[in-house]
């Protein structure tokens, strides 16, 4: 075990012990029509914890993290985010959404707005910040994701990697307490994957609570406190990264890892 990994395990134990819960999911089930996508999900995410979710296509990873900011509704069970329970109450949902940032596989930037407008829109209209203040912070975060010089361009004029970094900056401008990532690099070319992952590692080091759906196992090894493996709507296995990769318990995990690591 590397020193860094040991240190991370220590960190995680401390978080667990502190009991500061960011997200708590208990006995959650979800169906799409007849199809049981998420089956009895129980998951507690502590403040500052970084979790990578992996699993085969169609196993419900996206659906799970989309339930956390109510892009999808769940049918049974309970989801609590930063102390607020997700119910059908619109006010709760809006409060949670402004605490939780989300990055999508296809970026979903607003193509009719410039980069800086993308970043200031929500702070100005949701948080009612003065324009100047919002712009200053947008510039700070754009600088931090290393595209300060593109602020006045439109999303259509940027490369995929740049767009995804703008999307991350856009979420950060709302100063969320939790960041969700749904396969942020899987629509990108290898060269761009690295620039996005660098930003995410940087974000991880700042202590952000992160829930990342990703197949980037290198990234998982490097930053995750915990790895969750899902299959057929179920959490099949979860563990600290070293143990997860070196000593998987379930047959399905072993099969998945052998497939994903063989190339």
């Amino acid at each position, binding site marked *: 075990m590397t020193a860094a990994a040991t240190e991370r395990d220590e960190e995680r134990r401390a978080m667990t012990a502190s009991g500061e819960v960011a997200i708590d999911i208990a006995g959650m089930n979800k169906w799409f029509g007849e199809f049981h996508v998420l089956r009895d999900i129980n998951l507690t995410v502590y403040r500052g914890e970084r979790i990578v979710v992996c699993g085969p296509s169609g196993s419900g990873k996206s659906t799970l993290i989309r339930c956390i900011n109510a892009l999808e509704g769940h049918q049974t069970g309970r989801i609590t985010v930063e102390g607020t329970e997700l119910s059908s109450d619109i006010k709760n949902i809006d409060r949670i959404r402004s605490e*939780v940032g989300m990055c999508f596989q296809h970026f979903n930037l607003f193509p009719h707005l410039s980069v800086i407008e993308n970043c200031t829109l929500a702070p100005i209209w*949701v948080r009612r910040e003065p324009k100047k203040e919002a712009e200053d912070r947008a510039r700070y975060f754009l600088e931090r994701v290393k595209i300060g010089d593109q602020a006045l361009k439109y999303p259509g004029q940027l490369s995929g990697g740049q767009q995804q970094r703008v999307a991350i900056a*856009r979420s950060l401008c709302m100063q969320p307490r939790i960041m969700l990532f749904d396969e942020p690099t899987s629509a990108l070319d290898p060269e761009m994957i690295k620039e996005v992952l660098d930003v995410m590692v940087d974000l991880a080091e700042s202590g952000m609570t992160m829930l990342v759906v990703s197949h980037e196992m290198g990234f998982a090894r490097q930053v995750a406190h915990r790895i969750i493996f899902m299959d057929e709507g179920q959490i099949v296995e979860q563990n600290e990264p070293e143990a997860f990769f070196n000593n998987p318990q379930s047959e399905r995990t072993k099969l998945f890892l052998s497939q994903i690591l063989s190339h």
Partner: protein
Amino acid sequence: MAGEKSVAFVAERQIPPSPPPVKTGGALGWARDNLFSGVFNTVATLLSLAFVAYILAMVVPWLFLDSVWNASSLQGCREVDDGACLAVINERFLQFVFGFYPEELRWRPILAFVLLFVAIWPALFSSAPRKLLIFSALYPLLAYWLIWGGSLWGPVGAVVGLAIGWACIRFLPPLVRGRLDEGLAFLAAVGAGILATALWWLFCVTAFEDALGAVLAIGLEPVESARLGGFLLSTIIGVSGIAGSLPIGIVLALGRQSNLILIKAVCVGFIEFIRGVPLITLLFVAWLLLSYFLPPGTEFDLILRVVIMVTAFASAYMAEVIRGGLAGLPRGQYEAADSLGLDYWKSMRLIILPQALKISIPGIVNTFIGLFKDTTLVIIIGLLDPVGLLQPIRADQNWNGIVWELYGFIALFFFIFCFAMSRYSMYLERNLDVGHR
């Protein structure tokens, strides 16, 4: 080995960037590339040129060289030359423009027309001062007052009604905050606002007008609707229809996507009913049937009724055009807006509609142009739009037998308006184009 080449290759140097090649050949080169490349293109070009020349050879002498501008009858024209008898347009021009609007008051519609451009300027060009939008909002009532005349307090009373409605929507929801679901409170406030406005308009405006008129009488000489006609009438109906159908169409399109069954049903019902009925039927309803439904004694201006019907008709089409734009947006845009915590109205206004409307521009302008040309249908309920004015002219002893000149003149008027709209929409599309997605 002789003759066998290796595929291995290494660039010896970095090629420096150079400017693109200059276009060569000028006009001749362009013509060779675009008009005479190959046998087929050459033949097609020559045939087209011959056709254009043939048409011009007919039209130019008729319209320009041999035309007659001054004569008092068709015979008079023929005595001078055998080209177009434009004297009829010369003589009836003002009637074509104003209908039977009193001569000494014609400065009023002219002023309204000039102010129209001031009012639409901020809506059309983003470079215009934003403050002008206030003027744009007040313009419809100002134009109404200028054209129809009467006491100033009538339009002011109408504005007060709108203000009452707005105040209900703005200030009622906070009063019940916490006691009622927010969406429900908003809907209730909108309902209350519409009701209050309607009640004010139905029962209080007249009293308001009389009361203030007694204190301070400001008014213009009233002009009856029956005296309006010609291009003035087409423009009134067309512009009101255009200005009204876009916002109503947006609301209907959003309503059609709503999760609230009641709202959705109302919108779908309205759209499907209006679209399923010919405009002529609606105009007949406006003309004949509405007076049965209104309380006896209510004066409800015919032109206003027609404007309402034309607007409703265009709104239904507009709603479907905009729905197409809404459906054309990727779901990710809605999700991104939601995930940032924008509520429904903000995400619609800031994210969804700007993009959906941009996609829909060709369809929207198409509907506008259709609406504008459909205003000529009002002839069948006896309004004297330009086409309606033709009948008396053609029946006139002096001008009996003139066809091309008159219809051509009307066609030119509509063409100018419609072509301008089409050009503007192309300008707008180019202007809003900010790189591919």
